């Protein structure tokens, strides 16, 4: 009989939360399988057959325009400039009539899924992609909608998806953070909220591929590893003494965990974060851009056992095209398209795509009606995200928006449904991944969410 302990229970069983950290070196020597077998995750619900072990979340901050990229709507031409009653939905800002997309859509892959000319590289991997054209969310404003996408709630206090996943499953590599965010501004994308702070995402910039700039000052050039270990052990003893006097403190535990992880990262991370060690052909495939660096690093991190990687398209809320959407997309899509496609292709080539979920999207989409004559407003009613790998069906476009691309109409998928489905593929029942806080059990999906079985292979 296998007794499954949560990580917290295991720490306590081993003589107190803080005591375990002295054993960090012992964990570092374990194989992936042994670490998994050690049950370092906190999920204690029914074990579903897990298809995926890792998640790479590609986030396009601002709300990319689905109508110009994934959701062709030729009917818009017939009603250009008009505002038929069927699309009389409230928008966040003042908007005018319908504005057709000028971009060409072609059919790709074994099922002839239509994809815009803006994404010629992603079009080549469409057979790996499950394009969900019927996403909807619950808020038209960036900050709450971003929180919804990343935490399942509009509130600014809830843990991010990456935190929930690493809380549930633990890590496969004790020498690295389990949850890493590349080019991320933090906030809901990395927040651990009420979960223990060791599950917070660790943010690294990717503007420069030099690992010394991605993780500055990581390697202590003045004190050798043994002396550092002695320092940390001395600090640990002080903290243990504090704990005996004042009781366990989860924030202190989180800080200690972070320091221990940083100590261990010295021996692995600089090599791992050095994409210059990749063959030039691979670097060329991803492209010489910060987003290309982010996607290539994400693959390397997943390969090394990092559980959850968030890759932001750098530049802040840059996909928020209230003006000049056509020109902006023509400038911005090529490097995004190249790197995202390269990531999927590369994971597939290495046999990692089956165990890695790649999720792509923004906090909402954009309206089919124009704003400022050349832009599009926020659209939470219907938009597109895609998922690749991790046991999702490939080569399909699931669901549909209305004739004008405004509102999800067929097989609607809420943001909570997507979260529930992601957790399902990671082997967790979303209703059972809970954390007791302030007197009640919390979930990533709160009281919502249905697993979308139609899109699972």
């Amino acid at each position, binding site marked *: 009989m296998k007794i499954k302990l949560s990580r917290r229970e295991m720490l306590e069983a081993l003589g107190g939360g803080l005591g375990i950290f002295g054993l960090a070196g012992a964990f570092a020597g374990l194989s992936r399988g042994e670490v998994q077998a050690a049950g370092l995750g906190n999920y204690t619900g029914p074990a579903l057959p897990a298809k995926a072990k890792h998640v790479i979340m590609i986030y396009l901050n601002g709300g990319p325009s689905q109508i110009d990229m994934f959701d062709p709507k030729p009917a818009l*031409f*017939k009603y*250009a400039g008009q505002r038929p009653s069927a699309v009389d939905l409230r928008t966040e800002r003042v908007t005018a009539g319908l504005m*057709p997309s000028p971009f060409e*859509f072609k*059919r790709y892959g074994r099922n002839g899924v239509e994809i815009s*000319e803006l994404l010629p590289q992603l079009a080549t991997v469409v057979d790996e992609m499950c394009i969900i054209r019927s996403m909807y969310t619950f808020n038209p404003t960036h900050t709450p909608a971003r929180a919804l996408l990343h935490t399942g709630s509009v509130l600014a206090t809830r843990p991010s998806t990456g935190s929930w996943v690493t809380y549930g499953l633990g890590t496969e590599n004790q020498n690295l953070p389990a949850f890493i965010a590349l080019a991320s501004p933090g906030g809901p994308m990395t927040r651990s909220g009420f979960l223990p702070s060791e599950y917070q995402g660790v943010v690294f910039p990717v503007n420069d591929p030099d690992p010394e700039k991605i993780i500055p000052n990581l390697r202590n050039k003045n004190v050798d590893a043994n002396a550092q270990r002695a320092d940390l052990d001395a600090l640990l003893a002080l903290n243990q003494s504090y704990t005996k006097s004042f009781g366990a403190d989860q924030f202190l535990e989180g800080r200690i965990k972070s320091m221990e992880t940083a100590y261990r990262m010295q021996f692995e991370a600089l090599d791992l974060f050095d994409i210059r060690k990749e063959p030039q052909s691979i670097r*060329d495939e991803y492209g*010489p851009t910060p987003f290309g660096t982010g996607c290539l690093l994400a693959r390397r991190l997943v390969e090394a056992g990092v559980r959850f990687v968030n890759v932001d398209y750098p530049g802040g809320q840059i996909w928020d095209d209230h003006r000049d959407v056509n020109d902006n997309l*023509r400038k911005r899509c090529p490097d995004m398209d190249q790197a995202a496609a390269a990531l999927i292709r590369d994971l597939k080539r290495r046999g990692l795509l089956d165990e890695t979920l790649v999720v792509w999207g923004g906090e909402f989409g954009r309206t089919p009606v124009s704003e400022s004559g050349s832009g599009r407003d926020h659209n939470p009613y219907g938009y597109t995200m895609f998922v690749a790998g991790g046991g999702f069906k490939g080569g399909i476009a699931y669901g549909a928006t209305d004739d004008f691309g405004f509102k999800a109409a067929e097989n609607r998928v809420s943001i909570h449904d997507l979260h529930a489905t992601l957790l399902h593929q990671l082997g967790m029942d979303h209703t059972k991944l809970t954390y007791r806080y302030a007197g009640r059990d919390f979930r990533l999906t709160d009281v919502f969410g249905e697993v979308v079985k139609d899109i699972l292979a």
Partner: protein
Amino acid sequence: MRNLVVAFAGLVFCAVVAARPAAQQTVARKTVREAVYTEAQAERGKKVYEANCVTCHLPDLDGSANPDAGARGAPLVGTRFVQDFGESRVSALFNKMKRDMPSGRPGALTDQEYLDAAAFVLQRNKFPAGAAELTEETAGEFWIPGAGGAEGLENYTFVTTVGCLYQDPTRSWLLTDAQALKKTELPARGAAPALAAPDGRGEFTFRLLDAISYNPDPHNGHKVSVTGYMVRLGAEIRVNVQSLQMVGSSCGK
């Protein structure tokens, strides 16, 4: 009262002039159709191109539009070139090259080499060579024309034209050798659209949107009449197809 009428008429005139589409206002511009480089300069530019640009943009300058090559450079010929540089001065092309190219070592060439490479690109886009070389000064004077064929038409105007239906290597459907777009009336519900008459070969190329909904494959290489909505993308003109009808079994080439 008469003064009021005159003033009102004047206002209307000013408003109409101010509202003229950009395409009409550019008619008097000097364009590269007036021969702004020499054959010898384009030949030098070809050598510069082959040494510095060909890896990304490919020998035929079709770059990322070539589906089999896996190249990363933007196409420097065809509709994409028109999109990117149409209705711009040649200096925009020169400055773009000088600022960003060659990839990974921008600004590494001399100004003369950049001008020669620009001349080569103009040559490959079928603009004529002449007696004078392209210089920085003339690059700032001469314009690269837009796609044309839609002068005076507003975005989303319902139009008709005749041309040669052609699927390019990227599987885009184009109407080549097409006549200028003509505004036409939207057909009444159930009625056939007013098709353009097949009267000779035109000079324009339009990319067709949503042609795949009209089973175009059997008509690849045929002369067809198209109606649809005109749409501008940068300086390129496109047509969202609403009807497509064969009017000749060949394009007469």
